[in-house]
């Protein structure tokens, strides 16, 4: 693999294989979350990102390690892509003390601040202005960092989306808006409730922002598109918007069997699975199938070990409920 040729402007085979393995880890982590929920070990709800792996992994591959990432309640893939381990994530979902957020956040709020992944937010669209602020901060501090907000198609119809795009454009900030358009705003087709065909990309021109559309199930295409927009933003040319077309393999949340999606649509998208697309690219590059199988095996082993470790981790100390409100670590609000 060390002598593998680079593709024209894409990753070399070693890097592509690594991206594939990252996606495989995410897919298996989401499957584990699903199974653990059904077995009663995950409470509340989960919004699984299986099917969206290429957006997180492709984008992350195009970013600097110190670039900021803000995600939504469907954000497991972004936490994993920015350095959270499957064990940390699954432990959080399973209410364990070893969870990413000490079991105070849960599935919808996975955060890996040490990896500059500054949170998963469960109020639709709320984090777009935050990403604008992080980009503003990066510019004020002169660090060359950029900020990226990942969001769903549904977020394009909320006010914060529009306020964020306008302010980012007016202040010409190094921020990317990456829409994961999976065609459904919860249970409703996004096309039924949106005035334009491409809910994110068609809005970008109104703010003077370049809006691109990309195959969100092709990790290489996502990586290239994000690299292009990130380069522009980092060079001082302002924000960019990318609408990544993708599809979720599960329903909106655990309560949703997604019966509203036409069978032929589901079938069409499942045939365009991001892992399959990456496998196809690896095959084109001449990577032997056994190397891909080895990556799958490693991913499976990592996630299996994570499940076992999370299961065996202790519950949080109940006293932790009264910590972490204030920066001094406490919760004291009165004398």
């Amino acid at each position: 693999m060390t002598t593998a040729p680079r593709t024209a402007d894409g990753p070399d085979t070693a890097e592509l294989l690594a991206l594939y393995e990252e996606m495989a880890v995410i897919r298996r982590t989401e499957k584990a979350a699903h199974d653990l929920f059904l077995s009663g070990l995950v409470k509340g709800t989960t919004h699984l990102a299986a099917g969206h792996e290429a957006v997180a992994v492709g984008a992350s591959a195009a970013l600097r390690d110190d670039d900021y990432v803000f995600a939504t309640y469907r954000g497991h893939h972004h936490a994993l892509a920015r350095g959270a381990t499957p064990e940390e994530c699954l432990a959080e979902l399973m209410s364990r003390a070893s969870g990413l957020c000490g079991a105070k956040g849960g599935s919808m709020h996975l955060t890996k601040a040490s990896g500059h992944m500054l949170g998963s937010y469960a109020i639709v669209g709320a984090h777009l202005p935050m990403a604008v602020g992080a980009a503003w901060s990066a510019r004020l501090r002169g660090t060359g960092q950029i900020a990226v907000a990942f969001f769903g198609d549904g977020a394009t119809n909320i006010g914060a989306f529009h306020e964020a795009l306008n302010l980012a454009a007016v202040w010409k900030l190094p921020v990317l808006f990456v829409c994961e358009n999976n065609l459904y705003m919860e249970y409703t087709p996004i096309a039924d409730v949106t005035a334009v065909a491409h809910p994110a990309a068609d809005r970008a021109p109104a703010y003077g922002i370049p809006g691109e559309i990309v195959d969100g199930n092709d990790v290489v295409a996502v990586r290239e598109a994000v690299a292009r927009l990130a380069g522009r933003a980092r060079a001082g040319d302002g924000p960019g918007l990318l609408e990544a077309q993708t599809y979720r393999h599960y329903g909106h949340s655990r309560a949703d069997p997604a019966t509203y999606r036409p069978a032929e649509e589901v079938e069409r998208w499942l045939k365009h699975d991001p892992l399959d697309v990456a496998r196809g690219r690896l095959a084109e590059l001449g990577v032997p199938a056994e190397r891909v199988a080895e990556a799958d095996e490693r991913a499976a082993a990592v996630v299996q070990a994570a499940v076992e470790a999370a299961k065996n981790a202790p519950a949080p100390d109940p006293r932790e409920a009264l910590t972490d409100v204030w920066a001094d670590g406490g919760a004291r609000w009165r004398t």
Partner: protein
Amino acid sequence: MADVITYRQAVAEGIAREMRRDPAVVCLGEDIGAAGGVFKTTAGLHEEFGSGRVWDTPISEQAIVGAAMGAAMTGMRPVAEIMFSDFLACCWDYLANEIPKVRYMTGGQVTVPLVVRTANGGGLGFGAQHSQATENWALTVPGLKIAAPATPADVIGLMAAAVRSDDPVVFFEHKGLLATKGPPAPPDHVVELGQAAVLREGDDVTLVALASMVPLALTAAERLAEEGIDAEVIDLRCLVPLDAMTVLGSLAKTSRLVTVEENPYQGGWGGTLVSIVADEGFGLLDAPVRRVAAACVPLPFADVLEAEVIPTVDKVVATVRDLTTY
């Protein structure tokens, strides 16, 4: 140094002192730059610090407070202005769901050292959507600190503490006090958040007030003194942290409590304070607790109607007089 300074000047001076001290302090808001703010509470900042640190924004309250949050999480100390406190409703998601919760729900991974400043309160005839005292809105959300100064010196001292705080602070500047004058603050003046001030000592009754209700309570106390009623007046200065111990300490002496609140009786901050007194200071009381608060209606426009709704000196005097005969 001037002999006196207005509350309005004190806001700009308080921010300027922190901006001189710490390059991480930046301001954003509507009309705050060259215009100096619609209330002129940021006058001079743009001239002194330039457009790199004082940023005019569109009318986008969510973007203002959301961007302040993102900047605060990444190494800056933003001071965001929401022009009228009524407009906090336009960005309430950030104050209710995002800013006060992100530290907790990430298990302490991030901090949000920001200040949201806003012009609060009535008495100026601005009508129902520009006159509210909304400090009680913020009090409903664990995770926000709340300051509401009554004097120019406290504006500067509390601003210093708010900007230096690693926790988010909602800073209520009272519109009715902007033109009032007081002694300037000494250099490096910091008033720690959560320390009430006993402004007038008395043995008969404790009046607890905030912001513009503080001078009103002091005036009422002078009137009551003429009737031989000796009122102690406490300026809470902050709602969170709430200095309940100073109030309880005063009640040990006076045994009578009247809160003077501009926010509505319904859900007003006095309800929280009084519940603490009922829990922990019941034995100190010789009479029922009274709350002089705004009537539970929208703020009307006409002076004569507005005065009917919000506390007045007469209402405080009458309430205290009744209470002392209990």
